[in-house]
């Protein structure tokens, strides 16, 4: 029988490793959104001296490849330094799983992004972002591309929800092309804020809605 998943993938799907949360983690991130499809949360603890990942946990609201990739990246990243862990690619994760169907790349890449974002979250919280690139409108838009528009299942930039972006004196102001009382206004606001507030040169993030 031509089953789409190999035994390693199925094994990780059935018995995912390192599932759960870490209380007060050093870094955490969620990729995807429940409204658009798959979603994965990654939590890490980092040893401050060596910068090694001492603990990593994940949670998944996704399909088999999303769960299996979440599981394998916890195994691949544990014990590695954050710089090493950042470099783990989808290809490496897929190879460690003995190969994933290419059509499933979009579900499984979320786990990789989750790990990278959790590390970035740690770095930002601990003032470790080395490339001190000044936050510009470009940077903000790039980050907002990670915020999903639940109505479309695509990001808020691609679906023209971002009406305007302004960066001035460490304050970001984003205007979202939705009324304030819209069903998804609160979720979008929260997600957008989370993506922006840890930028090293930003003191304040305002997400506003159109009248």
């Amino acid at each position: 029988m031509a089953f789409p998943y190999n035994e390693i993938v199925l094994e990780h799907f059935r018995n995912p490793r390192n599932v759960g949360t870490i209380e007060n983690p050093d870094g955490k991130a969620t990729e995807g959104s429940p409204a658009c499809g798959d979603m994965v949360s990654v939590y890490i603890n980092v040893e401050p001296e060596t910068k090694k990942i001492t603990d990593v946990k994940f949670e998944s609201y996704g399909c088999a490849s999303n769960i299996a990739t979440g599981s394998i990246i916890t195994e691949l990243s544990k014990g590695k330094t954050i710089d090493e862990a950042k470099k783990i690619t989808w290809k490496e994760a897929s190879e460690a799983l003995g190969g994933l169907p290419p059509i499933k790349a979009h579900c499984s890449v979320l786990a990789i992004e989750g790990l990278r974002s959790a590390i970035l979250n740690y770095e930002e919280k601990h003032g470790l972002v080395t490339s001190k690139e000044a936050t510009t409108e470009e940077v903000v838009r790039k980050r907002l591309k990670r915020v999903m528009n639940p109505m479309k299942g695509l990001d808020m930039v691609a679906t023209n929800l971002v009406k305007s972006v302004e960066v001035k004196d460490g304050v970001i102001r984003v205007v979202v092309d939705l009324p304030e009382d819209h069903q998804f206004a609160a979720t979008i606001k929260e997600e957008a804020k989370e993506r922006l507030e840890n930028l090293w040169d930003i003191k304040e993030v305002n997400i506003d809605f159109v009248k």
Partner: protein
Amino acid sequence: MTIKAVYMDNAAATRLDEEVLEAMMPCYFENYAVATSEFGYSQGLEAREILADARTRLAASLGAEPGEFIFTSGSTESSNLALKGVAKALGDKKGKHIIISSIEDFPVLHSARALEKQGFNVDYLEVDEYGLINTEQLAELLTDQTILVSIQHSNQEIGTIQDIETIGRLCREKKVLFHTDATHTFTRVPLDVGKIPVDLITVSAHTIHGPKGIGGLYIRKGTQIAKIMDGGYQEFDLRAGAENIPGAVGFARAVDLVSDEENARLKEMRDKIIELILAKIPHVTLNGHPEKRVPQNANITFHYVEGESITLHLDMYGIAVSTGSACFSRSLEASHVIMGIGGDHERAHGSIRFTLGRYNNMEEVVHIVDTMAKIVGNLRLISPLGKEGGV
């Protein structure tokens, strides 16, 4: 008795009934001739009679005349012929406006889209939270340019039954042709063309324990429709190609074998699935109408978990069902039906369709619900959402 495998995807395909196969066998080994013209040889003439008999019985099951029923290769072809055939016959003569619902199955939906590219105007009627169209809205959209309305009898995913009597009446008043895709209601929900003003009906054998590769299209006498596939003059010159006589015979036999008792039994199992899941598993939503639904369909969203993960776990228990999750589909698109009833991606993501058939029993129903409870509970334990659902 230990339960080995449970198949509950009968909307996709059904197990063939042995009696159907028995009826078909002589058409493969005894008289395997094609139906010849009335001047043919004996076997061809006999084949012609066998085909005519199957046609008469199928037409009668819809209250129609034999001359109003043609055989096709299945629902997809029937609906293609209905939409494109009417468009071809009336597009230049009468108008280029077609109305369908937004939750039609792909043969109707994609035929309509293909016609749009050829210059036809298509209105896609929105549906309410149960999947029902608004008949008042339909009435407002009908114009003297409208050539066809195509609204399914019931939905392929959520099982909602449309009020085709009212729809048919509205179309009749405006002299607009009305097609309904009855793939999932044929023999399960009464449909009599003497009572309901419908001009074209798509039916298929594969959903009622008949053979795959045979379907039919009811075409009311006098309906303007053109053939869309070129070849011979078979099927009243509306569908070219050597007739699938074994299929036609099997189809007619499959229809005979469906009984009111069976439909009542399916409904009992359907209600049990819904009742047990709603009682045993928290955070679930029934998709479709609570009463206006076909007896064999239950569709439920299990929140905070994803459909492909559920079906893959179920598969390890030998259980076959389907899901509206994008991860399960060939196009990576979430179910247009769940989205159409006002659901979001989240609702489609965890939706599971159970469709019952002749070979399911109550023991399997209980087993499937218990297994679902276990799987959904475990998946919720690893989900960042809905923690309280774990078992």
